[in-house]
Protein backbone atom coordinates (compact mmCIF):
# COMPACT_ATOMS: atom_id res chain seq x y z
CA UNK A 1 0.00 0.00 0.00
CA UNK A 2 1.07 3.55 -0.65
CA UNK A 3 2.40 5.31 2.38
CA UNK A 4 1.58 8.86 3.26
CA UNK A 5 3.64 10.34 6.08
CA UNK A 6 1.49 13.42 6.12
CA UNK A 7 -1.72 11.50 6.87
CA UNK A 8 0.00 9.20 9.35
CA UNK A 9 1.30 12.15 11.32
CA UNK A 10 -2.08 13.89 11.42
CA UNK A 11 -3.77 10.74 12.62
CA UNK A 12 -1.23 10.40 15.42
CA UNK A 13 -1.61 14.09 16.35
CA UNK A 14 -5.41 13.92 16.45
CA UNK A 15 -5.27 10.83 18.65
CA UNK A 16 -2.91 12.55 21.05
CA UNK A 17 -4.61 15.95 20.98
CA UNK A 18 -8.28 15.61 20.03
CA UNK A 19 -9.95 18.76 18.75
CA UNK A 20 -13.31 19.97 20.17
CA UNK A 21 -16.27 19.48 17.90
CA UNK A 22 -15.29 16.36 15.99
CA UNK A 23 -13.57 13.01 16.21
CA UNK A 24 -11.57 11.39 13.43
CA UNK A 25 -10.18 7.92 12.85
CA UNK A 26 -9.61 5.35 10.13
CA UNK A 27 -12.44 3.27 8.70
CA UNK A 28 -10.06 0.32 8.50
CA UNK A 29 -6.76 0.37 10.42
CA UNK A 30 -4.85 -0.87 7.37
CA UNK A 31 -5.93 1.98 5.09
CA UNK A 32 -4.71 5.51 5.81
CA UNK A 33 -6.73 7.00 2.96
CA UNK A 34 -10.26 6.39 4.27
CA UNK A 35 -11.25 8.25 7.44
CA UNK A 36 -14.46 8.24 9.40
CA UNK A 37 -15.48 11.49 11.01
CA UNK A 38 -18.08 12.31 13.63
CA UNK A 39 -19.07 15.96 13.94
CA UNK A 40 -20.90 17.21 17.01
CA UNK A 41 -23.52 19.74 15.89
CA UNK A 42 -22.23 23.23 16.81
CA UNK A 43 -23.88 24.81 19.86
CA UNK A 44 -26.31 27.66 19.06
CA UNK A 45 -26.74 26.44 15.50
CA UNK A 46 -29.54 24.52 13.79
CA UNK A 47 -27.39 21.45 14.28
CA UNK A 48 -27.10 21.71 18.07
CA UNK A 49 -27.45 18.21 19.51
CA UNK A 50 -26.85 16.54 16.13
CA UNK A 51 -24.31 13.78 15.63
CA UNK A 52 -23.15 13.79 12.03
CA UNK A 53 -21.23 10.93 10.48
CA UNK A 54 -19.06 11.50 7.45
CA UNK A 55 -16.29 9.88 5.45
CA UNK A 56 -13.14 11.58 4.18
CA UNK A 57 -11.53 9.86 1.18
CA UNK A 58 -8.01 10.99 0.36
CA UNK A 59 -6.42 10.59 -3.05
CA UNK A 60 -2.92 9.12 -3.21
CA UNK A 61 -1.69 12.59 -4.16
CA UNK A 62 -2.88 14.16 -0.90
CA UNK A 63 -1.87 16.84 0.20
CA UNK A 64 -1.36 17.99 -3.38
CA UNK A 65 -5.00 17.17 -4.12
CA UNK A 66 -7.91 17.51 -1.70
CA UNK A 67 -9.91 14.68 -0.13
CA UNK A 68 -13.59 14.13 -0.83
CA UNK A 69 -15.97 14.47 2.08
CA UNK A 70 -19.27 12.59 2.10
CA UNK A 71 -21.88 12.73 4.87
CA UNK A 72 -23.38 9.37 5.80
CA UNK A 73 -26.02 11.11 7.89
CA UNK A 74 -29.07 12.41 6.02
CA UNK A 75 -28.67 16.19 5.64
CA UNK A 76 -30.47 19.04 3.92
CA UNK A 77 -28.03 21.79 2.97
CA UNK A 78 -27.31 23.79 -0.23
CA UNK A 79 -23.67 22.62 -0.23
CA UNK A 80 -24.43 18.92 0.25
CA UNK A 81 -25.67 16.78 -2.65
CA UNK A 82 -28.96 14.99 -2.21
CA UNK A 83 -29.16 13.23 -5.60
CA UNK A 84 -28.92 9.42 -5.33
CA UNK A 85 -25.63 9.20 -7.27
CA UNK A 86 -23.73 11.70 -5.10
CA UNK A 87 -25.77 11.64 -1.91
CA UNK A 88 -24.08 13.31 1.04
CA UNK A 89 -21.12 14.63 -0.97
CA UNK A 90 -19.97 17.98 0.34
CA UNK A 91 -19.20 20.65 -2.22
CA UNK A 92 -17.19 23.55 -0.74
CA UNK A 93 -14.52 25.71 -2.31
CA UNK A 94 -11.61 24.59 -0.12
CA UNK A 95 -12.09 21.02 -1.32
CA UNK A 96 -11.55 22.14 -4.93
CA UNK A 97 -8.06 22.75 -6.30
CA UNK A 98 -7.28 26.18 -7.79
CA UNK A 99 -8.02 26.10 -11.50
CA UNK A 100 -11.01 23.87 -11.01
CA UNK A 101 -13.57 26.25 -12.43
CA UNK A 102 -16.81 25.14 -10.96
CA UNK A 103 -17.12 28.58 -9.38
CA UNK A 104 -15.23 30.54 -11.98
CA UNK A 105 -11.77 31.96 -11.56
CA UNK A 106 -12.85 35.31 -10.16
CA UNK A 107 -14.42 33.84 -7.09
CA UNK A 108 -12.59 35.02 -4.00
CA UNK A 109 -13.48 32.00 -1.91
CA UNK A 110 -10.64 29.95 -0.62
CA UNK A 111 -9.44 26.97 -2.67
CA UNK A 112 -7.58 23.81 -1.81
CA UNK A 113 -3.97 24.27 -0.76
CA UNK A 114 -1.52 21.61 0.44
CA UNK A 115 -1.43 23.27 3.85
CA UNK A 116 -5.00 22.18 4.62
CA UNK A 117 -5.25 19.40 7.16
CA UNK A 118 -8.06 17.19 8.44
CA UNK A 119 -8.42 19.70 11.24
CA UNK A 120 -8.59 22.80 9.04
CA UNK A 121 -11.09 21.09 6.70
CA UNK A 122 -13.35 20.19 9.61
CA UNK A 123 -13.08 23.66 11.11
CA UNK A 124 -14.38 25.00 7.77
CA UNK A 125 -17.17 22.42 7.67
CA UNK A 126 -18.25 23.22 11.23
CA UNK A 127 -18.30 26.92 10.40
CA UNK A 128 -20.39 26.13 7.31
CA UNK A 129 -22.92 24.25 9.44
CA UNK A 130 -23.01 27.06 11.98
CA UNK A 131 -24.67 29.45 9.55
CA UNK A 132 -28.48 29.51 9.67
CA UNK A 133 -28.70 31.11 6.24
CA UNK A 134 -26.03 29.38 4.17
CA UNK A 135 -24.69 30.67 0.87
CA UNK A 136 -26.89 29.54 -2.01
CA UNK A 137 -24.59 30.30 -4.97
CA UNK A 138 -23.78 27.31 -7.21
CA UNK A 139 -25.62 24.93 -4.90
CA UNK A 140 -25.07 21.18 -4.81
CA UNK A 141 -28.64 20.78 -3.59
CA UNK A 142 -30.74 23.15 -5.69
CA UNK A 143 -33.98 22.45 -3.81
CA UNK A 144 -32.39 23.19 -0.45
CA UNK A 145 -30.93 26.44 -1.83
CA UNK A 146 -34.32 27.43 -3.17
CA UNK A 147 -35.90 26.74 0.19
CA UNK A 148 -33.26 28.82 2.01
CA UNK A 149 -34.25 31.77 -0.19
CA UNK A 150 -38.00 31.29 -0.42
CA UNK A 151 -39.00 29.55 2.78
CA UNK A 152 -36.29 30.05 5.41
CA UNK A 153 -38.60 28.90 8.22
CA UNK A 154 -39.34 25.64 6.37
CA UNK A 155 -35.62 25.18 5.71
CA UNK A 156 -34.79 25.56 9.39
CA UNK A 157 -37.53 23.14 10.34
CA UNK A 158 -36.24 20.46 7.93
CA UNK A 159 -32.67 20.92 9.18
CA UNK A 160 -33.77 20.72 12.85
CA UNK A 161 -35.76 17.56 12.16
CA UNK A 162 -32.81 15.85 10.47
CA UNK A 163 -30.49 17.04 13.26
CA UNK A 164 -32.73 15.44 15.90
CA UNK A 165 -33.03 12.28 13.82
CA UNK A 166 -29.23 12.05 13.52
CA UNK A 167 -28.92 11.99 17.31
CA UNK A 168 -31.68 9.35 17.67
CA UNK A 169 -30.18 7.15 14.92
CA UNK A 170 -26.85 7.35 16.63
CA UNK A 171 -28.16 5.66 19.78
CA UNK A 172 -30.06 2.93 17.93
Amino acid at each position, binding site marked *: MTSNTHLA*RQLQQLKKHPVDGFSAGLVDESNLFEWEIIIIGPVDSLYEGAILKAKLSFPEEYP*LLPPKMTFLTDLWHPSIYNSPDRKGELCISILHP*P*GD*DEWGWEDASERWLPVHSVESILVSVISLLSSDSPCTDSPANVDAAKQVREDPAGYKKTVRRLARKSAEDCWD
Partner: protein
Amino acid sequence: MTSEAQSTELNDTEILELTEKIKEEESRGSPLIGVLEEMPALLKEYENGNEIYKNKINNLITEGYNHFRRIRGDGNCFYRAITYAFIELVSKDSQAATSAKERLENVGIPLLSELGFDSDIMLDFYQPLLSILDNVKDPSISIGDYLKVTLNDDEEVSNSIVVFMRYLTSATIRKNADDFIPFLFAYEGDLQLDDEGMPDIKKFCETYVEAFGKEADHLQMTALGRVLDLGLKVCYLDASERPTVDWHTLNENSKTITLLYRPGHVDLVYK
Protein backbone atom coordinates in the same frame (compact mmCIF):
# COMPACT_ATOMS: atom_id res chain seq x y z
CA MET B 1 -13.91 18.42 -30.31
CA THR B 2 -17.28 19.45 -31.72
CA SER B 3 -17.56 22.48 -33.96
CA GLU B 4 -19.68 24.10 -31.28
CA ALA B 5 -16.89 23.81 -28.71
CA GLN B 6 -14.35 25.13 -31.20
CA SER B 7 -16.34 28.25 -31.80
CA THR B 8 -16.61 28.98 -28.05
CA GLU B 9 -14.30 31.82 -27.23
CA LEU B 10 -11.95 31.24 -24.34
CA ASN B 11 -10.72 34.11 -22.20
CA ASP B 12 -7.03 34.54 -21.37
CA THR B 13 -7.29 32.81 -18.03
CA GLU B 14 -9.05 29.82 -19.56
CA ILE B 15 -6.42 29.59 -22.28
CA LEU B 16 -3.68 29.75 -19.65
CA GLU B 17 -5.31 27.02 -17.61
CA LEU B 18 -5.90 24.84 -20.63
CA THR B 19 -2.26 25.25 -21.67
CA GLU B 20 -1.09 24.35 -18.17
CA LYS B 21 -3.31 21.28 -18.16
CA ILE B 22 -2.03 20.10 -21.54
CA LYS B 23 1.57 20.64 -20.48
CA GLU B 24 0.97 18.79 -17.23
CA GLU B 25 -0.51 15.83 -19.09
CA GLU B 26 2.26 15.76 -21.69
CA SER B 27 4.98 15.91 -19.06
CA ARG B 28 3.75 12.92 -17.05
CA GLY B 29 6.24 10.13 -17.51
CA SER B 30 9.23 12.37 -18.14
CA PRO B 31 11.71 12.43 -15.23
CA LEU B 32 11.17 15.02 -12.50
CA ILE B 33 14.88 15.79 -12.72
CA GLY B 34 16.62 14.69 -15.91
CA VAL B 35 20.19 13.47 -16.31
CA LEU B 36 23.01 15.84 -17.23
CA GLU B 37 22.96 16.22 -21.01
CA GLU B 38 25.36 17.83 -23.45
CA MET B 39 24.26 21.00 -25.23
CA PRO B 40 23.91 19.44 -28.70
CA ALA B 41 20.89 17.56 -27.28
CA LEU B 42 19.24 20.92 -26.69
CA LEU B 43 20.15 22.07 -30.21
CA LYS B 44 18.45 18.96 -31.53
CA GLU B 45 15.08 20.25 -30.27
CA TYR B 46 15.35 23.07 -32.81
CA GLU B 47 16.85 20.96 -35.61
CA ASN B 48 14.16 21.80 -38.13
CA GLY B 49 13.07 24.96 -36.45
CA ASN B 50 14.00 28.44 -35.62
CA GLU B 51 17.51 29.67 -36.51
CA ILE B 52 17.36 32.24 -33.72
CA TYR B 53 17.28 29.50 -31.06
CA LYS B 54 20.10 27.59 -32.73
CA ASN B 55 22.30 30.68 -32.87
CA LYS B 56 21.63 31.54 -29.26
CA ILE B 57 22.40 28.02 -28.10
CA ASN B 58 25.60 27.94 -30.16
CA ASN B 59 26.64 31.21 -28.59
CA LEU B 60 25.96 29.78 -25.13
CA ILE B 61 28.24 26.86 -25.96
CA THR B 62 30.94 29.33 -27.05
CA GLU B 63 30.60 31.02 -23.66
CA GLY B 64 31.38 27.67 -22.03
CA TYR B 65 27.89 26.41 -21.14
CA ASN B 66 28.29 22.82 -22.16
CA HIS B 67 25.65 20.95 -20.19
CA PHE B 68 22.03 21.22 -19.22
CA ARG B 69 19.49 19.27 -17.21
CA ARG B 70 15.82 18.94 -18.10
CA ILE B 71 13.19 19.41 -15.40
CA ARG B 72 9.65 18.05 -15.73
CA GLY B 73 7.32 20.70 -17.13
CA ASP B 74 4.43 20.27 -14.73
CA GLY B 75 4.25 23.84 -13.46
CA ASN B 76 6.62 23.07 -10.58
CA CYS B 77 9.79 23.18 -12.68
CA PHE B 78 11.26 26.32 -11.11
CA TYR B 79 10.89 24.92 -7.60
CA ARG B 80 12.35 21.55 -8.56
CA ALA B 81 15.18 23.19 -10.51
CA ILE B 82 16.22 25.55 -7.72
CA THR B 83 16.03 22.77 -5.12
CA TYR B 84 18.23 20.49 -7.18
CA ALA B 85 20.78 23.15 -8.10
CA PHE B 86 20.84 24.54 -4.56
CA ILE B 87 21.57 21.16 -2.98
CA GLU B 88 24.06 20.31 -5.72
CA LEU B 89 25.87 23.60 -5.06
CA VAL B 90 26.07 23.32 -1.26
CA SER B 91 27.04 19.64 -1.49
CA LYS B 92 30.43 20.70 -2.79
CA ASP B 93 31.63 21.34 0.75
CA SER B 94 30.19 20.17 4.01
CA GLN B 95 30.41 23.63 5.61
CA ALA B 96 28.14 25.05 2.91
CA ALA B 97 25.62 22.24 3.47
CA THR B 98 25.68 22.92 7.22
CA SER B 99 25.18 26.66 6.72
CA ALA B 100 22.34 26.07 4.25
CA LYS B 101 20.57 23.86 6.77
CA GLU B 102 21.17 26.33 9.59
CA ARG B 103 19.78 29.15 7.53
CA LEU B 104 16.60 27.16 6.86
CA GLU B 105 16.28 26.35 10.55
CA ASN B 106 17.03 29.87 11.77
CA VAL B 107 15.43 32.00 9.07
CA GLY B 108 13.12 30.08 6.70
CA ILE B 109 11.23 27.82 9.08
CA PRO B 110 10.69 30.52 11.76
CA LEU B 111 9.36 32.77 9.00
CA LEU B 112 6.68 30.17 8.20
CA SER B 113 5.57 30.11 11.84
CA GLU B 114 5.65 33.89 11.97
CA LEU B 115 3.27 34.05 9.00
CA GLY B 116 0.96 31.64 10.77
CA PHE B 117 1.56 28.39 8.88
CA ASP B 118 0.95 25.38 11.12
CA SER B 119 4.36 24.02 12.12
CA ASP B 120 3.13 20.44 12.52
CA ILE B 121 1.87 20.50 8.95
CA MET B 122 5.01 22.20 7.61
CA LEU B 123 7.31 19.68 9.31
CA ASP B 124 6.38 16.98 6.78
CA PHE B 125 7.22 19.30 3.92
CA TYR B 126 10.65 20.44 5.10
CA GLN B 127 11.92 17.38 6.97
CA PRO B 128 13.00 15.59 3.75
CA LEU B 129 15.04 18.63 2.67
CA LEU B 130 16.80 18.91 6.04
CA SER B 131 17.73 15.24 6.01
CA ILE B 132 19.06 15.51 2.46
CA LEU B 133 21.25 18.44 3.57
CA ASP B 134 22.59 16.24 6.38
CA ASN B 135 23.17 13.23 4.17
CA VAL B 136 25.07 15.04 1.42
CA LYS B 137 27.87 15.64 3.95
CA ASP B 138 28.63 11.92 3.98
CA PRO B 139 31.80 11.68 1.86
CA SER B 140 31.12 8.06 0.94
CA ILE B 141 27.97 8.77 -1.09
CA SER B 142 27.77 9.81 -4.71
CA ILE B 143 25.84 13.09 -4.75
CA GLY B 144 24.47 12.51 -8.24
CA ASP B 145 23.10 9.07 -7.38
CA TYR B 146 21.76 10.22 -4.04
CA LEU B 147 19.95 13.23 -5.50
CA LYS B 148 18.49 11.05 -8.25
CA VAL B 149 17.07 8.62 -5.70
CA THR B 150 15.63 11.37 -3.50
CA LEU B 151 14.62 14.19 -5.84
CA ASN B 152 13.74 12.23 -8.96
CA ASP B 153 12.77 8.68 -8.04
CA ASP B 154 10.84 9.47 -4.85
CA GLU B 155 7.91 11.56 -5.96
CA GLU B 156 6.62 12.05 -2.40
CA VAL B 157 9.96 13.52 -1.26
CA SER B 158 10.31 15.66 -4.38
CA ASN B 159 6.75 17.00 -4.10
CA SER B 160 7.04 17.67 -0.36
CA ILE B 161 10.05 19.85 -1.00
CA VAL B 162 8.21 21.66 -3.80
CA VAL B 163 5.39 22.43 -1.36
CA PHE B 164 7.88 23.64 1.26
CA MET B 165 9.68 25.85 -1.27
CA ARG B 166 6.34 27.32 -2.33
CA TYR B 167 5.40 28.21 1.25
CA LEU B 168 8.86 29.61 1.87
CA THR B 169 8.43 31.81 -1.22
CA SER B 170 4.96 32.88 -0.13
CA ALA B 171 6.11 33.74 3.40
CA THR B 172 8.99 35.82 2.01
CA ILE B 173 6.68 37.76 -0.30
CA ARG B 174 4.13 38.36 2.45
CA LYS B 175 6.77 39.33 5.03
CA ASN B 176 8.37 41.80 2.61
CA ALA B 177 5.12 42.97 1.06
CA ASP B 178 6.38 46.53 0.57
CA ASP B 179 9.20 45.29 -1.66
CA PHE B 180 7.01 43.01 -3.72
CA ILE B 181 3.68 44.83 -4.07
CA PRO B 182 4.91 47.18 -6.83
CA PHE B 183 5.67 44.14 -8.99
CA LEU B 184 2.22 42.70 -8.45
CA PHE B 185 0.63 45.54 -10.43
CA ALA B 186 2.50 44.33 -13.48
CA TYR B 187 1.35 40.77 -12.94
CA GLU B 188 -0.27 39.41 -16.03
CA GLY B 189 -2.92 37.33 -14.25
CA ASP B 190 -6.13 38.67 -12.77
CA LEU B 191 -5.26 40.43 -9.59
CA GLN B 192 -7.67 41.14 -6.80
CA LEU B 193 -7.46 44.56 -5.21
CA ASP B 194 -8.49 45.31 -1.65
CA ASP B 195 -10.74 48.19 -0.53
CA GLU B 196 -7.84 50.64 -0.77
CA GLY B 197 -6.96 49.58 -4.30
CA MET B 198 -3.88 47.63 -3.20
CA PRO B 199 -3.30 44.09 -4.45
CA ASP B 200 -4.44 41.43 -2.02
CA ILE B 201 -1.05 39.86 -1.35
CA LYS B 202 -2.38 36.89 0.61
CA LYS B 203 -4.79 36.00 -2.17
CA PHE B 204 -2.02 36.49 -4.74
CA CYS B 205 0.26 34.14 -2.83
CA GLU B 206 -2.41 31.49 -2.38
CA THR B 207 -3.28 31.56 -6.05
CA TYR B 208 0.09 32.04 -7.75
CA VAL B 209 2.63 30.78 -5.24
CA GLU B 210 1.24 28.22 -2.79
CA ALA B 211 -0.95 26.37 -5.28
CA PHE B 212 0.87 23.26 -6.49
CA GLY B 213 1.51 23.31 -10.24
CA LYS B 214 1.38 27.10 -10.67
CA GLU B 215 4.35 28.38 -12.63
CA ALA B 216 6.79 30.80 -11.05
CA ASP B 217 7.69 34.19 -12.46
CA HIS B 218 10.54 36.59 -11.66
CA LEU B 219 8.76 37.65 -8.49
CA GLN B 220 8.67 34.15 -7.00
CA MET B 221 12.23 33.49 -8.16
CA THR B 222 13.56 36.64 -6.49
CA ALA B 223 11.76 35.87 -3.24
CA LEU B 224 12.94 32.28 -2.99
CA GLY B 225 16.52 33.20 -3.90
CA ARG B 226 16.45 35.85 -1.20
CA VAL B 227 15.26 33.61 1.62
CA LEU B 228 17.67 30.81 0.63
CA ASP B 229 20.53 33.34 0.39
CA LEU B 230 21.13 32.20 -3.16
CA GLY B 231 21.88 34.12 -6.32
CA LEU B 232 20.03 33.23 -9.50
CA LYS B 233 21.40 33.79 -12.95
CA VAL B 234 18.64 33.40 -15.49
CA CYS B 235 19.55 32.57 -19.06
CA TYR B 236 16.56 33.74 -21.07
CA LEU B 237 16.20 31.82 -24.30
CA ASP B 238 13.36 32.92 -26.55
CA ALA B 239 12.59 33.74 -30.17
CA SER B 240 13.44 37.43 -29.89
CA GLU B 241 15.71 38.56 -32.72
CA ARG B 242 19.02 38.88 -30.94
CA PRO B 243 22.22 36.90 -31.51
CA THR B 244 22.61 35.87 -27.88
CA VAL B 245 20.43 34.92 -24.93
CA ASP B 246 19.44 37.59 -22.38
CA TRP B 247 20.88 37.28 -18.91
CA HIS B 248 19.05 38.39 -15.78
CA THR B 249 20.65 38.31 -12.36
CA LEU B 250 18.28 37.98 -9.42
CA ASN B 251 19.99 38.50 -6.02
CA GLU B 252 23.71 39.13 -6.45
CA ASN B 253 25.40 36.43 -4.37
CA SER B 254 28.67 34.54 -4.22
CA LYS B 255 26.61 31.34 -4.27
CA THR B 256 24.75 31.38 -7.57
CA ILE B 257 22.93 28.83 -9.70
CA THR B 258 22.03 29.16 -13.37
CA LEU B 259 18.55 28.59 -14.72
CA LEU B 260 17.73 28.08 -18.37
CA TYR B 261 14.45 29.91 -18.88
CA ARG B 262 12.30 29.43 -21.91
CA PRO B 263 8.89 31.12 -21.77
CA GLY B 264 6.77 28.93 -19.51
CA HIS B 265 9.54 26.54 -18.52
CA VAL B 266 12.71 26.31 -16.41
CA ASP B 267 15.62 23.87 -16.83
CA LEU B 268 19.17 24.02 -15.49
CA VAL B 269 22.25 24.96 -17.48
CA TYR B 270 25.89 24.39 -16.48
CA LYS B 271 29.24 25.87 -17.33
